[in-house]
């Protein structure tokens, strides 16, 4: 029964996260008393509650209808989740324009039906649009070309 499998996994996640939060609250933070609550008091309370509810999710059938969902978009996950990370890691060094081009070029391939030509055209168009809007329009204080781009940085930076 796939529905129960969902409950089991969700419950396990709740229990796991509850234990993780609870462990730090218990071992690393002063708990204090109800009168003088330490930084660990409220989190510990919540963590215990989360573990208990997690267990209830595992053992009590929810009885709700399973929402139909399609196949897991592995390609989308593999592309969409790293994209912001790459953007974050490169924006300082590359600057706004190359970082936008990079994130667009990466994310467009989350879809299965795009051609290389389409990807390149969209990258150029969207980068130009974003630079016009955010750099020239809204005046964001991010350098257009960062130090990693060498001569471009000296020209436009």
């Amino acid at each position, binding site marked *: 029964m796939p*529905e129960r499998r*969902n*409950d089991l*996994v*969700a419950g396990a*996640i*709740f229990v796991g*996260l509850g234990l993780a939060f609870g462990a*730090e609250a218990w071992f690393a*933070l*002063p708990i204090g008393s*109800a*009168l*003088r*609550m*330490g*930084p660990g008091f*409220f*989190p510990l309370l*919540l963590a215990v509650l*989360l573990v208990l*509810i997690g267990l*209830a*999710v595992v053992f*009590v059938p*929810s*009885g*709700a*209808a*399973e*929402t139909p*969902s*399609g*196949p*897991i*978009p592995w390609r*989308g*996950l593999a592309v*969409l*989740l790293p*994209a*912001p*990370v790459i*953007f*974050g890691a490169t*924006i300082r060094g590359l600057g706004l324009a190359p970082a936008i081009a990079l*994130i*667009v070029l990466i*994310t467009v391939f*989350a*879809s299965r*039906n795009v051609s290389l030509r*389409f990807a390149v055209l*969209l990258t150029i168009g*969207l980068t130009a649009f*974003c630079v016009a809007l*955010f750099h020239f329009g*809204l005046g*964001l204080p*991010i350098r257009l070309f960062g130090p990693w781009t060498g001569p471009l940085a000296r020209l436009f930076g």
Partner: protein
Amino acid sequence: MSDLLANLGLGFSVALHTGNLVFCFFGVLLGTLIGVLPGIGPTATIALLLPVTMSLEPATSLIMLAGIYYGAQYGGSTTAILINLPGESSSAVTAIDGYQMARQGRAGPALAAAALSSFFAGTVATLLLALFAPPLAAVALRFGPPEYFSLMVLGLVSAVALAHGPILKAIAMIVLGLLFGLVGSDLYSGMQRFTLGFYELAEGLNFVAVAVGLFGIAEILRNLENEQNRDLVIRKVTGLMPTREDLKRIVGPVLRGTTLGSVLGVLPGGGAILAAFAAYTVEKRVSRTPEIFGKGAIEGVAAPEAANNAGAQTSFIPMLTLGIPANPVMALMIGALIIQGVVPGPNVVTSNPELFWGIIASMWLGNLMLMLLNLPLIGLWVRLLTVPYAVLFPSIVAFAAIGIYALGSNSFDLYTLALFGGLGYLLVRLGCEPAPLLLGFILGPMLEDHLRRALIISRGDPMVFFERPISAGLLIAAAVVLAIVFAPNVARKRAEIFTEEG
């Protein structure tokens, strides 16, 4: 009465200020633009556009966000009517009869009925907000920490009642959200909590990154699940104006829908959705021709549209007067206020009257613009539906990334975005709605703060929550809500409603 007029006068002078008027217009336009795009509801729209408004003045940014909100709401009904694809849950009801009308070639009157009912309901609800918010805020000013704590508990419990899907999972999501909200420095001791050694987390997880991850990125992933069945056949919209007969038929439904929506919208936990359903059910029951419902009854479009717009408007009451979000959209608004340096709560009326009354006045103006904008531009919105998804989602991701980086020039916020995008998708897939998590995330630090203060006042005695009458009343209300939700027949009915809707 003269106070009300003076206050509304102040509000309109703020709202009609050229800059604010322009941003209200842009908000409505952008909100409709993005709300029309299939699969992106108001919550995701606001989350995505939040960074854009951050550089504005507090009043202007809230006015623009409010504009985005009702724009997105209206955009959602447009897609519901034209292609049977509600952009958000509260317009799911509109799709039932609206889409049937569109199939019979009456898309024009359906869209016009939706716009007119929304405008009327919005006007009434805005007036109610202006009337009732200040006295409520005056009462709330006497609230101490125990009352606030109990009020937030009631808000969180009600959020569970109206969340989709299994109740236990919704409660777990709230608790998880509360815990994520506590990440960062402890206010009292300055100790780092749950930062895993990252100094970037000292100020907590970035709220916008969490919201955009949970609602934006996760939603894109959800849409990528069945990418192939996205080719849509769109009929040409002709003959916009409803006939005299149509107008006569919608008067009653609009009045009843507005009343229901205004009352239910104040309830914490997403009143607009409930309001739309309730209004539809009521109309079907009072109608002399219930058999035409589901087959293109204009009453079935007008009533829920009036109800959800009224509800959307009155849900600002608890947000503006108590600082308690009634739904995820209001949670985002509170987040926006906090980022702007305004402390949400009953003090807003007195400390920022221009903000408070400006928002109220701009709501009415926004609704007016919405009507003037949408009816003539309907052709444009229809064409927008044909934008391929492969253009759409890279734009959304790029905008979100730039916006979030621009907020604090902090690369770490983008890692947060990716993390919560993945977590949000995983949890949605496992049948857990992300909305309660976001509510918990916002309320976590406030809840802890009020709990600590209440217990310091009472010298550590937890009975303080039951000894003070208002606090006790709120906790009893929370217990009643929980009991009702867990009662077997209500639980079954609730499951039915949300299945029907999904």
